[in-house]
């Protein structure tokens, strides 16, 4: 799980792994590792999810954490345009360490009103470049299972 701070990475993981959601924002330091067994095309899979601290001026991402990953979710906050810039930076860093592995751009907080029409064009351009982009709401659960399962499918295909 890569993304700026407070975009909802931990909330997405909690919703996916435990089915719970909290409005409280608790910042992540370092990494949280969670496991969930899912079934994709009748095959049981153990998904190890590394929920990493958001990168900002207070804390940089330790790239050691991403080593060994087979895919990643780049999470952005629909209401915070700056989170897309952070996602770009993290994507570039991840590519240096991991090469071209499956990833999905996740636009989280879809339950909140639109706040950045200006970025829609940029999102559309990324889609045209072949990026897989999905929207989620950790709060309502919309799209959460689907995004993790989609990434698992992509990983299995590679």
């Amino acid at each position: 799980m890569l993304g700026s701070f407070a975009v909802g990475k931990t909330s997405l993981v909690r919703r996916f792994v435990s089915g719970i959601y909290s409005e409280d924002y608790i910042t992540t330091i370092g990494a949280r590792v969670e496991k969930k067994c899912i079934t994709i095309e009748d095959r049981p899979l153990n998904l190890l999810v590394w929920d990493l601290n958001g990168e900002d001026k207070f804390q940089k991402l330790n790239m050691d954490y991403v080593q060994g990953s087979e895919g990643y979710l780049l999470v952005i906050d629909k209401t915070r345009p700056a989170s897309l810039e952070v996602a770009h930076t993290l994507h570039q860093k991840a590519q240096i360490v991991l090469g071209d592995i499956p990833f999905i751009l996740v636009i989280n907080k879809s339950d909140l009103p639109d706040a950045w029409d200006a970025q829609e064009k940029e999102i559309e351009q990324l889609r045209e470049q072949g990026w897989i982009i999905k929207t989620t709401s950790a709060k309502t659960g919309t799209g959460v299972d689907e995004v993790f399962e989609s990434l698992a499918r992509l990983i299995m295909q590679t």
Partner: protein
Amino acid sequence: MSSILARLVSDLDIAVLERTPQGSFNMVSEMPEWLSTLIPETTVHHEALFLEDIFLFLDDFLERHASFWNQPTLEQITSGVWTEVLPDGKEQLLQATALFVQERPLLLLKVPFHQEAWPIYQHAREQRLENEQLVEEINKREVLLHCIVHDLSNPLSGIKGSLDLLLSEELVEPEDGNELVQLGIRQATKMQKLIRSILSTFANEVKPLVPTLIGEDIAPDINACMHEVAESLSATASLRDVHIKVDSDRSKDPVKVVGETERLERVLFNLVANAIRHTPKGRKITMSLREEGKYIEASVEDEGTGVPEDLVDHLFDRFSQGNDSIGQAGLGLYFCRITVEGWGGIIGYRPSASGGACFWFRLPKPIKNPPASE
């Protein structure tokens, strides 16, 4: 472990485990409380612990560094920080270090300093979020305000045009209509000025700063600007029986500063107009210039009652208004500040010796031979 060492390790809340050839770990220090809550109760004597089953994080760390244990070394490997959720729901930050001591392979599990810093990170990020939200909110309001001001501007031009027509075409009877029409025109003109002032302030904010490396040849003459402003406001000042005095002679050599003539005059105009409003009848306003090293300082001093102390800190803020500023948008001094700062200058206020107000600003002198732009 010696008793002193054991005590130290215990006080530092560190778990020391020794790796067995089978890859499990035996506890060789006292078990820290945080760790005991995570170890299965079925484990006897804290031996043969398979840490990767307890900590998913270590599963990766130990596997990635499996070869480290092959040969004793003076090197050590420290993991990143990770979070474990304890059975009571509390979150515990941990960090692991693999090392050899007297050729014995050890793994240290400790609580990193980040645990104590956690509330600081939390607070900093909450503040940052709040700040981002405020900036977003302010931006939205500014755009809205800008749109409203633009929308007001067009119908106002129509109203003023109609009133002008009524007057010029003599469509109203002079004895009962002229005065009212003129009043309407005056009010409409005043409102147009206000709108221009607001728009100019917003426009100024989004304009890139004028490069401060402008040459002497294109730099404005602040002395000429002062005389120009004094002249343009002389009628207004006369109506209030206030005299505007410029300390320097108009015919003296140009006093060049970084900036742009039109906006520099507006800065001076705002300061002098402000002074006129606060100067009692029969008193004067003095405009002066003096050299301050690489800067030129301009000042506008009145003989009013000065600025109340509680307003001084916010004089140059946006929408800042004095106690008697009816009809003023509170943008004049704000405009002055952002303009002067945009040119690399500084603006301020000090009480004058007479007890009135003295607004001053310093602007850099232009350079004699600016480098050619690319």
